[in-house]
């Protein structure tokens, strides 16, 4: 896992002398929603947003396992917890400025967090509402009722204090999200802020056509002296949005003209390109791989027959053919089979187990036997919902499953759903199908955000946006989660999460299938291109073209 083959490109790279040139980014995402720090939902500040927004903390910009560490950004440290990690205090570094030269204050950060509560700016991660005192009822600063969230205090311009409803040892990780970026109240244009936010990062927006391109230029008020995490090598970054992924891969492999300076921040190699790359040593040199801790799995609705019966769930676990699934994803370079819910790439919180050994290609005999035991000697017919917009996990994986399950007497009726449809159908308990092919990734590299939404019974939301698809609610497990959340020591906490995962695995609440690997090409002039372990993607702030 982690960065593997970046050595060749970093040969001549020197952080001290990397500045200059124009980096091109070829992305398939359209980013038509723009860049409002309140609305963005990123992991560790995302790829492009991290160039525009500095947050209280951020991810450490290094290759390897250390890349999963959280480090101070605007703040002087990753936060001082008190009272069982329910109060977190941060002090700002001095000399911080926006791209327009005005100083960044603690009040701006408070305002940034507050505005993310406005219904108009919905879309960000849900943790703040849940964690902050009074968060559940707060409506943001725009008119109506209280306009100020009392649980965030700014005793002086460089100090900010957060009061949480419960213990959250992971708060420093959350503080890396863009909601913790400063927003000057005077410049806030509400919904329209997304097109031209005030930058606090090393670059600011020179031109932005939604859905098409974003041009970034240096922010002259930013300096490496207050920012140890961003190298900001290129003078300009030109980002093309909304390209077809096939075209991106063709351009990167051709690497002609300007494309020699190009990378992509969201398009992994597809199977055919990978097949081509494997046969071409010159191309192979320009490939980096990484993994975002994310598990693809089958989710059962325990409230629906026949999955209320653990034997049936075990039968499915045995019947799975992970080789076919991996091939459907594009082979071993793009996917790795996983028998655990917490994937191997979430190293700190991972513990190996395989309670229902299906072998490489499934064990239909055992599955049949279990089904018979469960009272289904003639097999079962169940629907399988999947997301059609997800090109990889959609149809190919679903058909692979269908084939493998057929051998065990399990007939899958495929139920393809478009993205929007999938999200509202699957994540609303009332409409949720009995069996769903889905995936789950951590918002930060910790077992907490990985396991809590899936297995914490108090996270079952009926209105929609529910991720506890099993609708599993065990008070003992809930209590255990609360206990781990109080631990502020990262390593200690992760060990506990891993143990919890291993314990839950026995219940066959899900069938873990595989984790995806990211394999990307970069242009021939690009240097210091590696995929970090937090997100499994580039940190653009450290890529250079010189």
């Amino acid at each position, binding site marked *: 896992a982690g960065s593997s083959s970046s050595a060749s490109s970093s040969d001549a790279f020197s952080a001290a002398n990397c500045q200059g040139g124009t980096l091109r980014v070829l992305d398939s995402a359209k980013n038509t929603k723009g860049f409002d720090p309140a609305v963005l939902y990123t992991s560790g500040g995302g790829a492009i947003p991290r160039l525009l927004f500095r947050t209280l903390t951020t991810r450490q910009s290094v290759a390897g396992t250390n890349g999963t560490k959280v480090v101070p950004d605007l703040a002087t440290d990753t936060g001082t917890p008190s009272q069982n990690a329910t109060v977190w205090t941060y002090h700002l570094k001095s000399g911080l400025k926006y791209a327009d030269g005005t100083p960044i204050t603690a009040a701006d950060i408070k305002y940034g967090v507050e505005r993310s509560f406005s219904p108009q700016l919905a879309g960000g991660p849900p943790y703040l509402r849940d964690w902050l005192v009074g968060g559940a009822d707060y409506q943001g600063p725009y008119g109506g009722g209280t306009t100020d969230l009392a649980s965030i205090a700014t005793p002086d311009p460089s100090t900010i204090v957060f009061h949480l409803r419960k213990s959250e040892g992971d708060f420093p990780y959350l503080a890396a999200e863009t909601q913790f970026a400063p927003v000057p109240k005077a410049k806030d244009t509400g919904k329209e802020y997304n097109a031209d936010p005030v930058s606090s990062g090393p670059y600011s927006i020179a031109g932005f056509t939604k859905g098409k391109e974003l041009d970034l230029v240096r922010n002259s008020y930013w300096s490496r002296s207050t920012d140890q995490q961003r190298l900001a090598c290129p003078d300009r970054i030109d980002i093309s949005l909304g390209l077809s992924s096939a075209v991106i891969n063709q351009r990167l492999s051709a690497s002609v003209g300007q494309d020699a300076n190009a990378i992509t921040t969201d398009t992994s190699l597809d199977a*055919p390109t990978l*097949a081509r790359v*494997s046969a071409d040593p010159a191309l192979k040199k320009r490939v980096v791989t990484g993994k975002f801790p994310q598990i693809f799995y089958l989710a059962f609705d325990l409230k629906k027959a026949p999955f209320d019966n653990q034997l049936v769930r075990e039968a499915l676990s045995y019947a799975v053919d992970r080789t076919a699934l991996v*091939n*459907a994803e*594009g*082979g071993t370079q793009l996917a790795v089979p996983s028998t655990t819910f917490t994937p191997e790439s979430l190293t700190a919180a991972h513990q190996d187990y395989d309670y229902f050994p299906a072998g490489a*290609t499934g064990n239909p005999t055992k599955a049949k036997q279990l089904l018979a035991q469960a009272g289904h000697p003639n097999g079962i017919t169940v629907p399988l919902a999947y997301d059609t917009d997800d090109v990889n996990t959609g149809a190919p994986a679903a058909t*692979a499953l269908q084939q493998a399950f057929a051998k065990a007497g399990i007939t899958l009726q495929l139920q393809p759903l478009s993205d929007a449809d999938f999200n509202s159908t699957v994540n609303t308990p009332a409409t949720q199908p009995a069996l769903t092919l889905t995936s789950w990734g951590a918002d930060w590299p910790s077992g907490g955000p990985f396991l809590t939404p899936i297995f914490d019974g108090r996270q079952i939301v009926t209105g929609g946006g529910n991720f506890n698809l099993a609708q599993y609610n065990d008070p003992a497990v809930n209590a255990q989660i609360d206990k781990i959340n109080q631990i502020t020591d990262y390593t200690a906490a992760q060990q506990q999460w891993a143990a919890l995962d291993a314990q839950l695995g026995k219940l066959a609440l899900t069938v873990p299938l595989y984790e995806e690997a990211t394999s990307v090409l970069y242009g021939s002039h690009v240097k210091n291109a590696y995929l970090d372990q937090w997100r499994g993607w580039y940190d653009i702030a450290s890529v250079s073209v010189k």
Partner: protein
Amino acid sequence: MSGHVTLTSTEPGAAVESAAALPTGAQRPAGGAAGVWARRGGRAAAVTVGLLVLVALTAPWLAALEGQDPNSFHDTLLNSATGGSPNGTFGGISAQHWLGVEPTTGRDLFARLVYGARVSLGVALGATLGQLLLGLLVGLAAGLADGRRGGRWVDALLSRVTDLALALPTFFFSIALLAVVPQSFPRPLLLGLILTGLGWAPIARIVRAETRVLREREYVAAAVLTGAGSWRIARREILPGLVAPVATYTAIVIPQNMVAEAGLSFLGLGVRPPTSSWGQMLSTSTTWFQVDPTYVLVPALTLLVCVLAFAGLGEALRVAFDPKSPVPAHTRRGRRKQAAGKKGEAR
């Protein structure tokens, strides 16, 4: 002038006919289906289309002949380390897999191709037929409605409905419709209906425009005087004149419908996996063209043959319905000889 000319006295009309010796109907160019068949190109096209339909009908037997089925995965035939591409040359062509296997799944391409014929031909032909029927009906009705007796309103209404159907952004509406209609509705039928609903308008417009030209001909006036209803006039007098433009347009539309199905299948909106269709095969295979050309060529060539066959059929139909068109193939050889003879003379 004599007061009374008996009709049989001079009888020049009958006398004219040295032609009376010729067999009846010999100079009558075969129209309609027979006319298509009578021409070499038409026959080739008809045979090809017939074969394609036969392939669709006998898909299970053909696959059984090969010993494969369209849905089974064959992991052992793939190289997992190189993106799941097939082992062996030419996309894994072997005695077991006549056209090789699909990358990343190892499904048999021949079986998928013959089964795919069912969906592709079914949807494309069904949709085209629907478009034709609806387009002809509306186009004729609008084209024949005249200024009298509120006819202008009929025309205006139908034309606006046609405009509306044209104005529906096709692709966009397909997406919505496919999402809105319940999952239980058979997909190929739904695809056919959607393509029909969104594709009849161009035909209606062409038909209306042509009809307005044709209805000014005096033979239409003559038919009006026989007391024929509009429907009969449309069928007997106008329709034959529409064959040329409509057949030509239809020949274009059939492949378009096939490709439209491909586009929708590509977005996961067409037929549901694991069902195969040619369009879906082509769209998933294109990115493989540098690595596994066989995979691309199989559906591409099939589609091409299909398109050429339908175009040939359309052309043959157009020619067959043109009374002044050259004589069918079986007499052609004779004519060529004559031409050669003429040349000789000229020298």
